[in-house]
């Protein structure tokens, strides 16, 4: 992707999502109003508001009694615009994949809304839901298990047409599938082969072709390249960028590899224990992070430059991510944070532009859920 889709300068002057109070469900209506995007960015195609997913923990065999809940996603809000890529990063167990499933309505949200073009899809069912799902497709992580080994490539890519026959009339399907194979860089003659006859990278292309079949507007990619070899990763990433330009797709790109996310994303959200810790453009997040968790995460990424190994600003976090069934009070990161104070244990920091950076034009003025937000460039420090 040669150019970010939007002008960076206009971004800074008019920061998006101004005041989303993630913790407070009562103010949804206001926050949606506040989020109305400036004209030059257009309407967001997807608006996520205070999305919550709790998985119940039960006890007992016959009479199941709920004893608690795994708070996998606990108040997540963001916008996705036409043609942009929103990266979501975080450690395993932070709820990134659950967010993906909620957006696909593969899981029923406990609370919160997902507006696709103004329509709340969490409350839809039946025909209306089916129509919306056509526009939101998914590419899965593991190309070895997400393709049915008993189906030919033609059947796999053509299966969406069985569900949505209005997209391709019956006689036309084979030709459509071959077109799709060609689009993702596979030989159209492979239509009758089975998944095991392809390598990992080729299988991921099949997965992408299946995602593209219904001409969706949004593709949710859950770790699409993490199972691939380094030299093949670049091929798939380049393909995804090419397709985005060609079909004006919006991507939600979920990954744990921060370098790849920076490469492909226009905006990046950092998740920790079911909440978004910090969100902004790639420059804001990577070059001007203000949340301590983002700083720690970035500093832990090994940089492929041996000269940088001594001078780097490494923040080594102690311990593991706490259990989402029993998250810490106040700020969820406080148990591993070196800046934590009494305030952090009692007050949940809201995801908003920190008071001290408000009104400034710089890259630091982006949303960060920290009481003591402070800029620290950990990537370039040498």
């Amino acid at each position, binding site marked *: 992707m*040669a150019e970010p889709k939007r002008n960076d300068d206009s971004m800074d002057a008019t920061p998006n999502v101004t005041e989303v109070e993630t913790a407070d469900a009562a103010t949804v209506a206001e926050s949606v109003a506040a989020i109305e995007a400036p004209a030059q960015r257009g309407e967001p195609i997807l608006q996520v508001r205070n999305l919550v997913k709790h998985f119940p923990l039960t006890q007992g065999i016959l009479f199941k009694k709920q004893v608690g809940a795994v708070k996998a996603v606990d108040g997540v809000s963001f916008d996705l615009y036409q043609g942009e890529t929103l990266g979501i990063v975080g450690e395993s167990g932070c709820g990134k994949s659950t967010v993906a499933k909620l957006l696909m309505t593969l899981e029923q949200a406990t609370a919160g809304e997902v507006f696709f073009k103004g329509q709340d899809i969490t409350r839809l069912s039946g025909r209306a839901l089916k129509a919306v799902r056509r526009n939101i497709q998914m590419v899965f992580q593991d190309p070895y298990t997400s393709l049915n080994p008993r189906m030919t490539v033609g059947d796999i890519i053509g299966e969406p047409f069985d569900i949505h026959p209005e997209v391709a009339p019956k006689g036309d399907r084979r030709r459509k599938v071959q077109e799709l194979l060609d689009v993702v860089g596979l030989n159209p003659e492979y239509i009758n082969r089975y998944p095991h006859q392809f390598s990992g990278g080729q299988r991921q292309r099949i997965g992408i072709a299946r995602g593209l079949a219904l001409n969706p507007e949004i593709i949710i990619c859950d770790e699409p390249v993490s199972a691939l*070899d380094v*030299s093949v990763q670049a091929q798939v990433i380049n393909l995804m960028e090419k397709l985005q330009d060609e079909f004006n797709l919006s991507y939600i790109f979920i990954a744990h590899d921060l370098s790849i996310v*920076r*490469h492909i994303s226009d905006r990046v959200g950092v998740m920790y224990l079911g909440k978004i810790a910090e969100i902004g453009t790639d420059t804001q997040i990577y070059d001007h992070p203000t949340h301590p968790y983002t700083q720690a995460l970035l500093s832990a990424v*090994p*940089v492929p430059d041996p000269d940088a190994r001594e001078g780097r600003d490494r923040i*080594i976090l102690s311990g*593991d991510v706490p259990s989402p069934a029993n998250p810490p009070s106040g700020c969820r990161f406080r148990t591993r944070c070196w800046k934590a104070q009494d305030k952090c244990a009692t007050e949940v920091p809201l995801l908003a532009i920190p008071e001290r950076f408000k009104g400034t034009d710089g890259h630091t003025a982006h949303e960060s859920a920290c009481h003591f937000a402070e800029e620290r460039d950990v990537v370039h420090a040498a």
Partner: protein
Amino acid sequence: MTIIDHTTADVPSPHGSPEDSGPLLEVRDLHVEFHTRDGVARAVNGVNYSVSSGETLAVLGESGSGKSVTAQAIMGILDMPPGRIPQGEILYRGRDMLTMSNEERRLIRGQKIAMIFQDALSSLNPVLSVGYQLGEMFRVHQGLSKKEAKAKAIELMDRVRIPAAKDRVNDYPHQFSGGMRQRIMIAMALALEPDLIIADEPTTALDVTVQAQVMDLLAELQREYNMGLILITHDLGVVADVADKIAVMYAGRIVETAPVHELYKRPAHPYTRGLLDSIPRLDQKGQELYAIKGLPPNLTRIPAGCAFNPRCPSAQDICRTDIPALLSVTERDGTELPGRGSACHFWKETIHG
């Protein structure tokens, strides 16, 4: 231009103590093949490398490049059959392990050379407590009693900084997080204070924050015991952080060797250059990524000549017929570059061009 035969030129190790003469482990012209229904898969085709005390050798390669198979051959844990070692030597302190009896090898394995596996959950026995599994090393190799072994296990868990080791020694693997399980794997490898540790993708399954903790721990323990370390990985970032020297593998061969700083600055093999160009950077937003075209070769049908030739942007006719030897790399004026080698007919163009 000299052929680097057998010994992959030794880079002076930064931590090596002076009284150590010669490398700890030397792999010479190792070949490993697997006899399968589809034919013979040549997984390793003449690998040479060496590690000294206190030194970290990173073996870099994609899946199927033979990096793990080489390590398994060193440990003597290859499945044979279908595996076979038709030729080669693995010298531990000058003695060829391939000609030793099983009993002799068993004395080296664990006590002198230990291995850390990638997936801690499947490498640990789920029905035995971690304390029992750690203690097994002491009971089997040193004949300690159960009680003594457990005390040693607690000590080890403390050393790899598992909090509340005393209370957790009777816990089972599933009760630990991924990072903690990997620490237990490290503890197990360290138990008998070996001279050499082989770490096969030790942090691939871990998150970056935990990866940083584990790599730090490993580096610290390595310094403390002055161990040699063979780090097998595909992550160019991890390699840049910890390695002293690097061997890049492709289709069962070493295609380039170099000290770590040199490799990243001036790769001398098109494959290495392609790999370095194809990774996105954290500190800058790049343009379109360079992608090495094509796929790694099928090991039952390795292309003639240089195995990389079908994917190489600068392949010539000679690359399709002649297998390039691992040649030492020199400056433009002919000055030796210590420790550098490249198996490319056109290394000069690659490094200086």
